[in-house]
Structure formats: C-alpha cells, structure tokens
C-alpha cells in the first residue's frame, strides 16, 4: 500500500480556513523576501517608495526591477511545479510521481543547453530569430518534444499505459543525460559556467519582459488543471472505474499531460531544473487536507509558491554577495524527504 495516512480530517470550512492561512503566509513570505537581501528595505523605506520619494529611487528600482520579477517568477514556478506534481501523482495513481520523473524537465534542460552551446555556431539563426527568448524557447521546445516522444511511445503500445509512460520517462532521462554530458565536454569556459549554473536551477537575471510569456503559460496551465479537479478525484479510483462514472479518461490524461508539459517547460525554460517541489508539496498538503483535488490543487499551488519564495530568499542571502542555485536547496530538502517516504512505505509493505 503506497498510501500516506492522513494526520487530520478537516471539515469543509476548516479546509477553506487552511487555504486562507496559506494565502496569508504566502503574502508574508513575499513581503519578507522583497525586503531582505543585499540591501534591505525597512518599513520607512517601503513607505517612502510607496509615496514616490525621489531619495529612495535606487531602492525602488532594486525592488521593481530585480526583486519583484524574480519573486513573481519564483511564486509562479513553485505553484506550477506543485500543481503539476499533484496532477501527475493522480494520473500515475502513485504518490511518488513528479514531472521530472517522466523526463519533461530534463528534456527542457536539453533544449536550453543545446541553445547555449550551439547558439554561437550551428543554431546561430535560431538565436538571432528569438534573441532574448532563445534559451527559454529552446528549453520549451525540448520539453514539448520529449512529451511528444513519450506520448507517441505509449500510444504504440495500444492503450495509454502508465507503466510504459514511466519506463519511457526513465529511458528519455538517460538519453538526455548522455547528450548533456557530451555537450558539457565540448563547451568552452563561458558556456560551461552558464550551463552549470542554469542546470542547477536559478531564478537570477530575469526581467519582466523575459518572464511575461512564461507567466501567462503557467497561470493558464494552473487554472486549467484546477478545472480538472473532480475528474482527477475520480481517476484515482482507477481508470475503468472513472470511465464507468462518466469521465472521459483518455481526454483527461492527454489534457493533464499537455498542461504539465506547458507549465514545466515554461518553468524549466526560465530557471532550470528545480527538483522535488512537485513531489514534496502535494505530499505535505495531502497529509493535512486529504487527497481531494478541490483543495489539494489550490493548497499545493500556495504551498509551492511559499516554498519557492522562501527557498529563493535563502538562495539569495545565505552566501552573500554570491548566491546558491535554488535547485540545490530544493534537492537538498527534497532528496531526504523522498528517501524517508520510501522507507516509510517499505516498512508499511512489510506487514
């Protein structure tokens, strides 16, 4: 039995209260994240900025041009990763599933790395065409191509089968790993630096111009996933049972898969692979609120956003004036959590 037990059984109004508390926590963590950093912004400074005082113009531009876009990106990436994680776990009917698992993240990473390494030579015209957006578009295309491949592979086998999807994901992760290795070896020093930092996951260096398209994609994906909440609940009963209750399961799977590709592709495009958020957050939420996607999805989005805004704060401030890639922080937290979950399940299965 893979199920995680529930700590609490909340009533509907208590669940709504939890959502409110999460929203307030998110607002607080965002405010703290905006105030703290290389230069800190005090309450007096906040008031001055709000009043449009010219003396704090420097602070104001730090706030609106550096911290705010970065924070908004962190929040949306966290929400998207957590929401797609929750949806993937329902589709796989396995609480250990994660968008990284089926190869979407690494596919997007490959797309970005190809653009970084080959951008000055073979792919010169591609980079010229997309300019600022070349790497994000490359990453996005990589993610979508991988999704297409996995989807085709699973269709070949006849019915859309979850096990073959998982296995295809493993194969694609391996192929992508090999390609990334080859490209790493052939890259020059500057390319190598870009590549390494990016592949560890980082939110740095993004402006509003750059993140706007991704924000739209992620918002749309999250909203569309939320619309599937009841169908996802029924899907957990099993594919046949969901069908017998009136859910068009094939359409549901295709939709969830595509939305995940969009959201994860967009997230990886801008900040590299940030692992485990899609795994940890829905898990913790499920322990408190239960598996009902009506609450699980919004609470996961909020939780993911909180986790990412705090992780980003830590990554910016822990080794000042330098910064730690955020992907390292989430993996350092997520890896042990994953192992702990596995051990817990093993001990449950043994009797």
């Amino acid at each position: 039995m893979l199920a995680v037990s529930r700590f609490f059984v909340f009533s509907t109004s208590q669940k709504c209260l939890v959502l409110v508390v999460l929203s307030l926590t998110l607002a607080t963590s965002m405010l703290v994240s905006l105030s703290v950093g290389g230069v800190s912004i005090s309450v007096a400074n906040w008031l001055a900025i709000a009043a449009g005082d010219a003396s704090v113009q420097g602070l104001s531009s730090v706030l609106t041009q550096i911290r705010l876009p970065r924070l908004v990106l962190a929040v949306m990436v966290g929400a998207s990763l957590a929401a797609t994680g929750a949806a993937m776990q329902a589709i796989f009917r396995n609480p250990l599933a994660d968008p990284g698992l089926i190869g979407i993240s690494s596919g997007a990473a490959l797309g970005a790395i190809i653009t970084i390494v080959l951008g000055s030579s073979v792919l010169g015209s591609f980079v010229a065409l997309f300019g600022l957006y070349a790497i994000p578009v490359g990453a996005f295309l990589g993610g979508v191509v991988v999704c297409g491949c996995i989807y085709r592979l699973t269709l070949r086998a006849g019915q859309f089968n979850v096990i073959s999807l998982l296995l295809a994901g493993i194969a694609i992760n391996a192929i992508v790993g090999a390609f990334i290795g080859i490209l790493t070896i052939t890259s020059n020093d500057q390319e190598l630096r870009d590549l390494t930092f990016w592949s560890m996951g980082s939110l740095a260096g993004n402006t509003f111009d750059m993140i706007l398209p991704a924000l739209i994609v992620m918002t749309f994906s999250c909203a569309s996933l939320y619309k599937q909440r009841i169908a996802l609940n029924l899907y957990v009963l099993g594919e046949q049972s969901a069908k017998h209750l009136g859910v068009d399961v094939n359409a549901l799977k295709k939709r969830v898969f595509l939305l995940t590709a969009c959201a994860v592709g967009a997230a990886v495009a801008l900040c590299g692979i940030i692992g485990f958020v899609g795994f940890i957050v829905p898990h913790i939420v499920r322990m408190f609120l239960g598996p009902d996607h009506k609450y699980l999805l919004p609470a996961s989005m909020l939780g993911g956003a909180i986790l990412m805004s705090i992780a980003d704060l830590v990554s910016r401030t822990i080794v000042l004036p330098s910064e730690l890639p955020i992907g390292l922080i989430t993996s350092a937290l997520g890896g042990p959590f994953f192992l702990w979950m596995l051990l817990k399940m093993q001990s449950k299965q043994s009797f």
Partner: protein
Amino acid sequence: MINARRLAVNVGGKVILNEVSFAVDAGEVVAVVGPNGAGKSTLLKALCGDVTVQSGHITIAEKPLHKWDLKSLAKVRAVLCQSYDVEFPFLVDEIINMASFAHQLPLEKWQEIVNDVCVKLDINELRSKSFTQLSGGEKQRVQFARVLCQLQPALHQKVPCALLIDEPTANLDLFHQFQIMQLAKQSAKQGAAVVMVVHDLALAASFSNRIYLLERGEVKASGLPDSVLNMAQLKQTYNIPAELSQVKGCLPSLKVHQHPLSV
C-alpha cells in the same frame, strides 16, 4: 436492456470469447458462471466497452454501445470492477460521493440517496474513515455502495438501467454475501437489468433468474438455474459430480457427490 450478439474477443492471438451472445432484460438478474479462465470477466468488460471486441455488436437500451457518450451511460449503467484499491487516503464518504459525477442532482437529494444506501449496506460507521484503512471486505462493500448510489437516480425515475458486478461477494462473509445479493436482486425488482459474475453456484442459483455457463470462451448452457446447473453439465464443465438441491423452505444449495479423487 443489454444485448450482445456473437461477440469475439482475442487478446494476443488467444481466443478469450468466441461467438458469445448474451442478453439481459430490465427486471432480471443474470448470473455468469464458469471455471477460471472461462472468459466471465472479459464478457463483463466487453459489455462495458472496456475491451476491444473483434467482431459482434452490443446494444444498450437498443442503442449501439459505441454511440453512447460516457456521461449519459454513467447515468443509466453502474459497474463494479474486481479491482477497487485506491492509493490515496480518501474518506469513505468521498469515495461514495464520486458516484454523483454524471448526475445533476441537488445536494440534499443526493445525500438522501447516499444515506439510504449506507443504511441498507450497514456501512454508516465506516463513512468518516479513511478508505485505505478498511479491510478487504469493507472496501468491497463501500465500492458496492458507490455503485448502488450511482444507479439510484435512474431507478427512482424509472429509466431503464443496468447494474454489472464482477464477483461482488469475493471477500465477504456469509451474511454480507447474502446482503449484497439481496440488494442486487432488489435493484432488479425496481427495474434494473443486473448482470453478475459469480463463482458460487449456489448463490448464483439462489439469486438469479437466468444463468449463463461459460467454458473456454463459449456459452455452454444458458437458461433457468435448474436447467443449467444439472449433474451432466457440472460434471462436464467442472469435472465435479454435483447438482442443485432444492429443499422446501431453503435456498437452493449445491449437492456434491463424493468426488472420485477424494480419499
């Protein structure tokens, strides 16, 4: 209600069903029996549209199965599969309420249906528990409750409907076996066409109007329980010398003659 003509199902070159014709009318309980691997569950899946049928065709309420959309079908047809495990800790109440997906019913009306069914199956004390913590038999009763709830709106509106259940008594004690059979029979009396796959021949004879006996993908006999479950047929199909025995005032039971292999 459900009509199937000359169904053939092959899986990986192996013939699972061969020229099987099947019919069930509103108001009757039809049992499908047969040895392991006879194709009983596959027949049920074919009637649900869950397996690809190589030839033959199926109608539900006179309309070809492939022309039904899933939601309309879910309003008039409920299915209990053999696998009912759920990997996430939904509450029993949440599981049962999933049956309301296809129906557009006011909440109070739906709650009334659920309360009624839960009383009938005496699972009221399970409703606030986590499904994953129930025993096998309890899980099965809860899933049966969900399926029964799904069918209630159609039964109340006297719309032709069907209940298909695959081994509904597999993990149950004697009392709950009878309870579930009784409720299936009651649904038929209210107007549903009930198809059930069962292993227990005595239960099949006690609660069904007609029986289909399947062996190696073919219908070997069909008709009234007495006529199907006779000594010659059971000897041939199960290699057990047995026959139905009917004692006045009791449900039919299986009288097994001493087996030639027994010591």
